[in-house]
């Protein structure tokens, strides 16, 4: 009877179970990537055991500020988004797309890059990031031409989501309806519970492979206390979001404020350094670079992350289309919150707050949206008056 | 006085040296009256521009004096400022500094041997030209050079003007695992270095002798690189050419803070370039001096290679004073640096912190290290806030310039005595003589653009 329950829905594992999970995933030939402490931050890196998880570490976040802080509860996942996102692995910063060789008579042979890609297992995908992966899925594989480099990595990836119980001061997933409870798309979903009954994880399977991995895990049947503790912790997290977006249709807001004064204000602060786009888990823009070797007969096409904050991003023969910093910040924000819908059917923002934290000068997209909304309100009022 | 038979030989631009210099020889008949090395490297005023900078900045700023030995500048600056602040960096941090310095020695000396100097012995214009006939030797040199650069890049971030050196140590220290692949590279490099010693030992060396005092740092128990006490080996009193392997006279040392009392800069009447003299005499720093003073502390492997290459045994107080053979000494030093780097990696344990704190305090500090081209001395005076109020930099080339000019005069004279060489032959000879000492011309802190004295030899 208990076995039946375990197969069908959820189970509980403890800290050792986390170790076992990593071992099982590795045994299945997967490269396990998860959070770990390095260089004073919780980063995402290959891990080989549970001990490398950031047990006892949390983060303190503010606009333009990130600090690692010790926690006394020993939690592994009581931290919010870090300096990287999963796109580092699924949509890597640099990819060779193809190479071409030219023989003596000028004939060109083009070879698509088929460097083997790792079969990843991502451990600790936050609900906002799970949504971000879904957003990139639509961008990069949803259209007529799939991005094969992305698809190969994505198809092989096993996602272990972890519900969010410790939102940061810069988080606003509730506004974007992406968290803190996990949405669809995971193979396994965990909720970390720490209370008088010990340190444990409620586990649910979201796919066939997830169920198979769960079946291999040393686990016990989920008890109602754990379930409700997990539910409560996630629900409490929803009430502790550090940021909110204005409660309006952001897409319309962006469309109607293209000429707002506020863009000038943000431009006086924006460094156009590109950090927000690099840390954003959905920003997908790339540029290509053609390289040749010294013989001149071997050429390669590489692509790397690019950003709409780069002046050369919109370079046409006469110069950059978006030359002013104002136009570049506006492009980023309106794309993320507005025109993304037109292009890909959803918002491009998942409310993870990375762009706020990792902006060196702390520009806050939620604050900008509020300011735009206020400005629109004022001008509407003036027109009405 | 007659003008007949007098001529001026002007080598417009010296090639295969770092930096820019020209040479002017004045001859009357078959007598060399002047050999003047003109540095037209534009002055860059480092000593002046360091004034008013923060005491943390000299390592990065002075690095820019020379792209070919930036670590020498960085570490001399660190030592001088740390000395002013009363801080001693030791243990694994000191070992890492020595490892970094070994990287520079390997890179810089190999560059000199294979790319700049060896073509002279084999009658080629350049290493690229040399590669047509000696490809494997050039490739070995490049490989060896790359091994040195690999150390610099791993520890310093990049080979030229590394970014990781700071007062008190480093910004970041490597893990043991990060150093491990380096050892594999260096094992191969050790074979290459040994092969290079054998290769250069087979070159033909003209008979030559220099009778300058030799100056190098010495540190009992080790071949001094990144620290040591200034040590002088005076020239033998007897005149006239002697074969290699003269018995070395006893050495004397002086305390680093008295460097300025011993090594004195002065202007010579015919030139605006500053020359240095050691206790009033011409002196030479660099490989020949180091080998003479510290040679007995070479690793067994390097020492054996030196002996096999025909160098006299420094343990027997023998000295090599033939500047043409300095290429062998440099090759031995490369082998030693590779060997030493392997030893340092094997005994590496990551220090607890990447740097010790160096709080500023008013005062003057001195630092000297053995740059590939010789002893490099820095002196800084700081105020209470740590602002540099005075800086003195004495690069090896400034010290060697007098010795080089004397070598030039002597070599040209010997050549004239042996027959009537063409200007082209003399030019080639002079370039070789200068490259024997690898003048690091871009160490321009002290060099001027010469106003060529056209009064000529008949005055």
């Amino acid at each position, binding site marked *: 009877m208990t076995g039946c329950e375990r197969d069908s829905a959820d189970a509980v594992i403890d800290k050792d179970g986390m170790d076992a999970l990593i071992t099982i995933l590795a045994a299945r030939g997967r490269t396990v990537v998860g959070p770990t402490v390095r*260089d004073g931050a919780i980063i995402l890196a290959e891990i080989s055991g549970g001990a490398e998880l950031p047990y006892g570490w949390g983060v303190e976040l503010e606009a333009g*500020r*990130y*600090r690692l802080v010790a926690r006394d509860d020993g939690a592994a996942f009581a931290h919010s988004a870090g*300096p990287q996102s999963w796109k580092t692995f699924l949509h890597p*910063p640099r990819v060779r797309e193809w190479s071409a060789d030219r023989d003596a008579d000028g004939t060109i042979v083009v070879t698509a890059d088929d460097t083997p890609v790792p079969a990843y297992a991502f451990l600790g995908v936050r609900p906002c990031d799970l949504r971000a992966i879904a957003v990139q899925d639509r961008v990069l594989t949803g259209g007529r031409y799939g991005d094969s480099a992305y698809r190969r990595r994505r198809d092989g990836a096993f996602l272990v989501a972890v519900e969010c119980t410790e939102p940061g001061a810069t988080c606003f997933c509730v506004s974007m309806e992406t968290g803190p409870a996990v949405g669809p798309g995971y193979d396994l979903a965990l909720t970390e519970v720490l209370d008088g009954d010990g340190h444990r994880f409620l586990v649910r399977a979201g796919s066939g492979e997830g169920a198979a991995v769960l079946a291999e895990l040393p686990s016990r049947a989920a008890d109602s206390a754990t379930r409700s503790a997990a539910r409560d912790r996630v629900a409490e997290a929803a009430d502790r979001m550090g940021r909110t977006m204005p409660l309006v249709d952001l897409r319309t807001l962006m469309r109607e404020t293209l000429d707002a004064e506020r863009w000038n204000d943000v431009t006086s*602060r924006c*460094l156009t*350094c*590109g*950090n927000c786009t*690099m840390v954003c888990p959905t920003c997908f823009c790339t540029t290509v*670079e053609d*390289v*040749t070797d*010294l013989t*001149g007969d071997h050429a390669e096409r590489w692509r*790397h992350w690019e*950003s709409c*904050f780069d002046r*050369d991003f919109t370079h046409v023969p006469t110069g950059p289309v978006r030359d002013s*910093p104002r136009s570049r910040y506006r492009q980023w924000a309106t794309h993320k919150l507005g025109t993304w819908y037109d292009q890909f059917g959803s918002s491009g923002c998942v409310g993870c707050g990375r762009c706020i*934290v990792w902006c*060196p*000068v702390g520009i806050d997209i939620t604050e900008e949206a509020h300011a735009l909304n206020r400005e629109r309100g004022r001008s509407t009022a003036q027109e009405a008056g | 006085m007659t003008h007949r038979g007098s001529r001026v030989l002007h080598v417009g631009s*010296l*090639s*295969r040296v770092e930096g*820019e210099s020209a040479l002017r020889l004045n001859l009357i008949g078959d007598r060399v009256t002047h050999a003047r090395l003109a540095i037209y490297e*534009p*002055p*860059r*005023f*480092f*000593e*002046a521009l360091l004034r008013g*900078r923060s005491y943390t900045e000299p390592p990065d700023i002075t690095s*820019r004096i*020379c*792209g070919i030995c930036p670590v020498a500048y960085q570490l001399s600056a660190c030592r001088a400022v740390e000395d002013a602040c009363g801080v001693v960096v030791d243990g694994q941090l000191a070992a890492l500094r020595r490892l970094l310095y070994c990287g520079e020695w390997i890179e810089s000396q190999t560059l000199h041997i294979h790319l*700049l100097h060896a073509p002279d012995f084999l009658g080629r214009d*350049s290493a690229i*030209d040399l*590669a047509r006939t000696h490809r494997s030797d050039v490739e070995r040199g*490049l490989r060896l*050079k790359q091994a040195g650069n690999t150390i610099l890049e791993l520890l310093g*971030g990049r*080979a*030229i*003007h590394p*970014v990781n050196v*700071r007062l008190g140590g480093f*910004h*970041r220290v490597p893990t043991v695992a990060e150093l491990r692949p380096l050892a594999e590279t260096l094992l191969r490099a050790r074979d290459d270095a040994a092969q290079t010693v054998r290769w250069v030992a087979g070159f033909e060396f003209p008979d030559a002798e220099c009778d300058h005092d030799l100056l190098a740092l010495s540190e009992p128990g080790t071949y001094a690189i990144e620290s040591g006490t200034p040590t002088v080996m005076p020239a033998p009193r007897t005149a006239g050419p002697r074969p290699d392997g003269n018995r070395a006279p006893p050495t004397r040392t002086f305390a680093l803070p008295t460097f300025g009392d011993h090594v004195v800069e002065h*202007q010579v009447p015919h030139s*605006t370039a500053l020359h240095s003299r050691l206790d009033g005499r011409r002196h030479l720093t660099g490989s020949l001096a180091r080998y003479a003073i510290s040679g007995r502390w070479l690793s067994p492997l390097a020492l054996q290679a030196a002996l096999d290459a025909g160098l006299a045994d420094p343990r027997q107080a023998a000295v090599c004073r033939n500047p043409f053979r300095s290429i062998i000494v440099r090759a031995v030093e490369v082998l030693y640096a590779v060997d030493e780097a392997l030893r340092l990696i094997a005994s590496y344990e990551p220090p607890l912190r990447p740097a010790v704190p160096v709080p500023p305090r008013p005062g003057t500090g001195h630092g000297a290290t053995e740059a590939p081209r010789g002893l490099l001395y820095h002196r800084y005076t700081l105020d209470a806030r740590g602002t540099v109020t005075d800086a003195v930099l004495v690069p090896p080339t400034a010290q060697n310039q007098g010795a080089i000019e004397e070598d030039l005069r002597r070599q040209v004279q010997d050549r004239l005595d042996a027959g009537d060489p063409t200007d082209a032959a003399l030019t080639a000879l002079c370039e070789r003589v200068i490259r024997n000492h690898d003048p690091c011309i*871009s160490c321009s802190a002290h060099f*001027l*653009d010469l*106003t060529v004295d056209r009064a000529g030899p008949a005055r």
Partner: protein
Amino acid sequence: MPTDETPGGAPRRPTLAVWKFASCDGCQLTLLDCEDELLGIAEKVDISHFLEASSATAPGPYDLSLVEGSVTTPRDVERIRHVRAVSRRLVTIGACATAGGVQALRNYADVAEFQAVVYARPDYVAALATSTPIAAHVPVDFELRGCPIDRGQLLEVITAHLAGRTPGVPRHSVCFECKQRGTTCVTVAHGTPCLGPVTHAGCGALCPTMGRGCYGCFGPSDSTNLPAFVPLLRRDGMDTLDVVRVLRTFNTAAEEFDAASRDEEELR
């Protein structure tokens, strides 16, 4: 095999010249630091003038000239015009050539005073009052930044020249590279002052990777906002003097750094 030109009309190898002005030689040394590629380069291009590496020089004109160093003497003002005249394509390499180098600190001082510090007979020194980039004297086809330049970028400039391609040398901030490398931001995570957001990419974000703040050795990026950026340096502990110093180091004569340092100096 070298493809030496033949009377039969085999393609002539492009000629390369390397020139030095006031500098440390580090940037031209970068060419010799291309250990894996040096002999290959020598097969593809005719290195016609490279005094640091070769005593053989061939007369111009040269297809590609790499120019290192800044202009600091009256003689160099003339010499750079000659170099321009004999060069089809002139590429400046390194901070001295593109932004005056560290020696451009004299631009803020009385050069006579500088000379007096170093030289007993300063009247012999033929130095200009300023150290200026090459582009202040002659038209430049491409500027490769860095103190020193990056080896990979130098190879890109050379291979791009051979292939007739525009070199893939981005002009955006160091932050792009830092993030692509996966380095945690030292400013945001540690409060370390870092010039990355206003500095031209190209080094591969070396300093932040070493846990150190960028010190701007590639000069300003093509899109800076120093008035917004400088307060960040102060927040992270730099005083006005520190700010002036960090902006006036290796890219002193770069317009954006120069302007910001002057603004800052007015506050003192």
